């Protein structure tokens, strides 16, 4: 390819480029199609996984959240943006959260708190417009539940009373029927009842061999269970 050949092929490539940009120009200009989302006028469709500040879920059965102030989220939060307090409430066995404050300006939306929540009462809110005029982004998560709280406590008291009587009756029946084994089962039921109330850490099961059964482990340290699910803590014998 000589001098003129080079010049010509160079011009050719330039013309190809201009053809492409013109075709795009024509698509926008004549086809009236562009890719811009005119944001304040059009709102983007939020994805199902959209993440904004966390909030407490309002369950339909109870009409309120199910936070038991176990502080699992507060402990796992890498940004230390969750502060909550609460605990025993007069009249019911179930523990309740009193204050739940979250500083959204620190949050990195990693979702570890949601994973950590033993009662699954946390979820992302779907607030798209997160901008504000000051840096104070502390969110009071329990604010919307406060007025229902007394009502809920009353309901819960009734439920718990019923459950207690039922359990008593059941326990008596069981006692009548069988001896020690049955008694143990009743214990377990009781435990399941008080499930959500447990706050302390789960026992370090790492050292325990995988074959070890959960029941004894639980029975050993029920008060320590961070997440008092009835599940067997996996014995993850670490590979070294």
């Amino acid at each position, binding site marked *: 390819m000589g001098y003129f050949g080079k010049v010509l092929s160079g011009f050719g490539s330039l013309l190809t480029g*201009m053809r492409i*940009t013109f075709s795009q120009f024509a*698509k*926008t200009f004549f086809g009236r199609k*562009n*890719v811009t989302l005119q944001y304040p006028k059009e709102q983007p469709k939020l994805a199902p996984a959209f993440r904004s500040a966390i909030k407490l879920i309002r369950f339909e059965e109870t009409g309120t959240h199910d936070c038991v102030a176990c502080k699992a989220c507060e402990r796992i939060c890498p940004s230390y943006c969750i502060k909550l307090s609460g605990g025993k409430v007069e009249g019911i066995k179930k523990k309740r959260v009193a204050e739940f404050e979250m500083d959204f300006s620190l949050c990195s939306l990693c979702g570890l708190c949601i994973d950590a929540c033993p009662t699954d009462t946390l979820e992302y809110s779907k607030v798209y417009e997160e901008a504000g005029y000051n840096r104070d982004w502390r969110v009071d998560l329990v604010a919307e539940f406060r007025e229902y709280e007394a009502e809920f406590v009353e309901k819960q008291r009734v439920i718990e009373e019923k459950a207690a009587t039922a359990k008593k009756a059941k326990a008596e029946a069981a006692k009548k029927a069988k001896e020690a084994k049955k008694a143990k089962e009743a214990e377990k039921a009781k435990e399941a009842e008080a499930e959500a109330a447990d706050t302390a850490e789960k026992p370090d099961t790492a050292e325990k061999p995988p074959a070890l059964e959960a029941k004894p482990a639980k029975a050993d340290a029920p008060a320590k269970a961070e997440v008092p699910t009835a599940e067997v803590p996996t014995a993850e014998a670490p590979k070294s």
Partner: protein
Amino acid sequence: MPETLSQLLDDSVLAMPIAAGLIMGALTINVLMLVWAERKVSAWIQRRMGPTEVGPFGLLQTLADMLKLISKQLITPSNVDKPLFHLAPLLAFAPVIAAVALMPFSKSLILVQNDFGLLFVFAFGGIAVIAIFMAGWGSNNKYALLGAIRSVAQSISYEIPLILSALSVVLVVNAMGFTLASGGSIVVANGLDLSHIVMAQDQHGLWFVLVQPIAAIIYFISALAETNRAPFDIPEAESELVAGFHTEYSGMRFSMFFFAEYTNMLIVSMLAVVLFFGGWDGPVLPGPLWFFLKSYMVIFVMMWVRWTFPRLRFDQLMTFCWKVMIPLSILNLLATAFVVAVL
């Protein structure tokens, strides 16, 4: 009945202020429109919308921008060469206005009739280089200086093919010996007179782009380089030199460079229309309208080119000029001279 506007204005003391005011007003509107057009064209090429909010179709967006620039503080950095720094924007601004005055918008609408209009336009174009160099030197900024050095080398180099390609047209006009009916008398066409170039095309119904296609392409490419437009926007290559020679300028001073740049675009495209596309020649519509329509079409192509290509490197730009453009334009000129002599 005065034949040209310039003759009308000659009679009045106010001639100069009125002419200057007219040109200034028209050019300001033109620049506002061009910036808007640039933004719209780039947006459409990039599948965007461009300005839409201020005014219908965002037409007033640049007006708002201009108001913002006017109201901004004029920052003078502490170690600049003050006289050069202050004078440069004015010097960039003035010659472009003068050059527009020479343009033949139609047979009778010529602000300044001059027998050597073409020479004057190029001469005024040359002053802009000095302004850019003053800005770059006076800013006391390495990026600005680099931009200024690049700009001078580039402008001086590309003026050669620019003028050579225009010269081919002049040669055609002169040697063909067109006779023109001007003002009741028959005159022999003068190739350096812009209106004569147009009239020569007008009368024969033959645009010089057909007679001189290579000269037209060379002219267009050189014009891109002259006006520092992409892909030759090396003096202000924002990814290398931040903003080139106007790095240190702000507010109205910056906008004067901006104004000069866009008016320069208008001038080179008007000159392209005069030299190659038959000036005001066109059916139905009045002459000046045709003239502007054609000019804006040329500007559209300039924008289209800008939003398509990446930027050349400085040495490649020079190589391209000296190894491709200048030989080609000299060859073209020689061929034209040969053909003209034989005929």
